[in-house]
């Protein structure tokens, strides 16, 4: 049995979420049965970085047309590699890029990606969340053929010793794989990535954050949470819908499409805790949730919770904070 682990690059290095996927892979096979895959036009340094771990081997999938990510290019290249290697599993980090091509790649060989997996148990049984994180589901791969799996950011910790990937004892073999790709196969023309707007607030370095979600109902109610943030000396942040509505600027958005934060205190007001939000803040030292719904997934990661009407709780909290400081 063999496993293909598709690693992703971020800033010239293998991404953190790729290493998390590598930790998850160990639930499926020992490291020496895992083939780590790096993709691009020039992959030498990524391959060398991967080879520091005790993988069975590292494969460099290299082609000039893979210089920039395209679904067509990646699907063509990986499809050929899968045909050559016949793996039992193909594992990815659940990144935006993987979401863009892995379902199509799986479909090309009649398979279905089990996406955004948070746990892998014997069977194997894959756990993923649905209903906005309110429920978990156990999934199995039913048919023959390779099983495609993507791993949610933050679900597996490569720094935890008992699930850590062993370092390479000797030299991990590195192979080259040159897919045949024709320029005409690539139908999308991607441009250079750009930033949305100039950043004026750095939530990443904030020690205290008060974050607001849909529960606030209207833009007119925002001063309520702003007052709490001011009283605490905290930065104000928000979940995606608040920024989508233009109530707060995009740069204050926490979550997979916004900023990742890890303050001492993260106080979530009226945020239900969709997965996309949780991945951006669950590393916070202390999490407080104020929500009217006792089943809201935010309470799964909260240290302290108040189940109640934020329009009553937040002003009371602001007053208490002010009083305790004077």
């Amino acid at each position: 049995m063999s496993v293909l682990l598709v690693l992703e690059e971020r800033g010239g290095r293998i991404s953190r979420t790729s290493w998390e996927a590598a930790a998850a892979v160990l639930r499926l096979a020992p490291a020496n049965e895992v083939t780590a895959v790096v993709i691009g036009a020039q992959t030498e340094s990524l391959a060398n970085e991967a080879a520091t771990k005790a993988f069975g081997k590292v494969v460099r999938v290299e082609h000039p047309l893979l210089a920039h990510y395209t679904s067509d290019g990646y699907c063509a290249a990986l499809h050929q590699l899968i045909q050559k290697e016949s793996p039992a599993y193909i594992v990815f980090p659940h990144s935006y890029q993987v979401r863009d091509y892995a379902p199509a790649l799986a479909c090309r060989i009649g398979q279905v990606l089990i996406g955004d997996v948070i746990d892998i148990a014997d069977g194997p049984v894959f756990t993923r969340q649905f209903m906005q994180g309110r429920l978990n589901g156990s999934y199995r791969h039913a048919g023959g053929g390779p099983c495609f799996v993507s791993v949610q950011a933050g679900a597996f910790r490569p720094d935890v010793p008992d699930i850590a990937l062993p370092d390479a004892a000797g030299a991990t073999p590195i192979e080259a794989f040159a897919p045949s790709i024709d320029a005409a196969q690539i139908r999308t023309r991607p441009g250079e990535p750009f930033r949305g707007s100039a950043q004026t607030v750095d939530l990443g370095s904030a020690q205290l954050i008060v974050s607001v979600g849909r529960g606030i109902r209207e833009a007119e109610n925002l001063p309520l949470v702003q007052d709490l943030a001011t009283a605490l000396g905290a930065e104000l942040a928000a979940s995606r819908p608040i920024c989508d509505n233009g109530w707060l600027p995009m740069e204050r958005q926490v979550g997979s499409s916004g900023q990742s934060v890890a303050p001492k205190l993260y106080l979530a007001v009226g945020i239900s805790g969709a997965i996309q939000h949780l991945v951006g803040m669950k590393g916070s030292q202390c999490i407080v949730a104020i929500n009217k719904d006792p089943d809201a997934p935010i309470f799964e990661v909260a240290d302290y919770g108040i189940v109640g009407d934020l329009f009553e709780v937040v002003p009371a909290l602001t007053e208490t904070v002010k009083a305790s400081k004077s």
Partner: protein
Amino acid sequence: MKIIAAIKQVPERDAQVRIDSAGKWIDEADLQYAMNEPDAYALEEALQLKEKAGGEVIVLSAGPERVGQTIREGLAKGADRAIHVVCDDLASRDALGVARLLAEAIKAENPDLILTGLQSEDLGLGQTGVIVAELLGLPHTSLILQVEKTDSGLKVKRELEEGWFQSIELPTPAVLTIQSGGTKLRYATLMGIKRAKTKEVRMVNATDLGVNAAPVVTLDAIMLPKKQKSTQILDGSAKEAAAALVEKLKFEARVL
């Protein structure tokens, strides 16, 4: 441009979902349903493109009879007609099974553009649009916030992670999966609601589409998530809870 907006009916965002007695799916009794939010944005994008460039918007949805209500909402907002793939076993099909139904229904229409939300708010698989593109042999791109028609096809704004974006050009016909928040959603007008009643909704039976429904991936059981932390819930009046919280944050967690 002939545009298909594929939309899904999902349980309302605030609905209390319960696990059914078999532990295999949610209890659908008394559930309220709504249009999946990212799909609402896909429909909005379709309507705006039509307003700029002319053409036709067709709403496509798969599911049981109740889905008709969400389809009417799409028509009331301005879609020209609809296709309802009547299917009572949507939840037991995997992403490929559902995408096959949609792709089969789309084929006969030969659209220039297919738009759908990037993911559903119930299963959250985020795969349907991408698989539909693969099945139809069309180019696609996902997580799209803006769509602009050009002479040679489309120019779109794609969301990347951590506040980055990217422009992508691609030819039509194509499939785009739309991210929420790229534009403002419209409400149906009274006139729109009235007109929707007279618009065509073509019913297609899933069984007549002749697609393979055998799942590759099965959902064996559903359960409540295991708590990742033990949460201390602070009870009492708002004032009491607030006082208890400040006390805890100062002296127990020591973060204030």
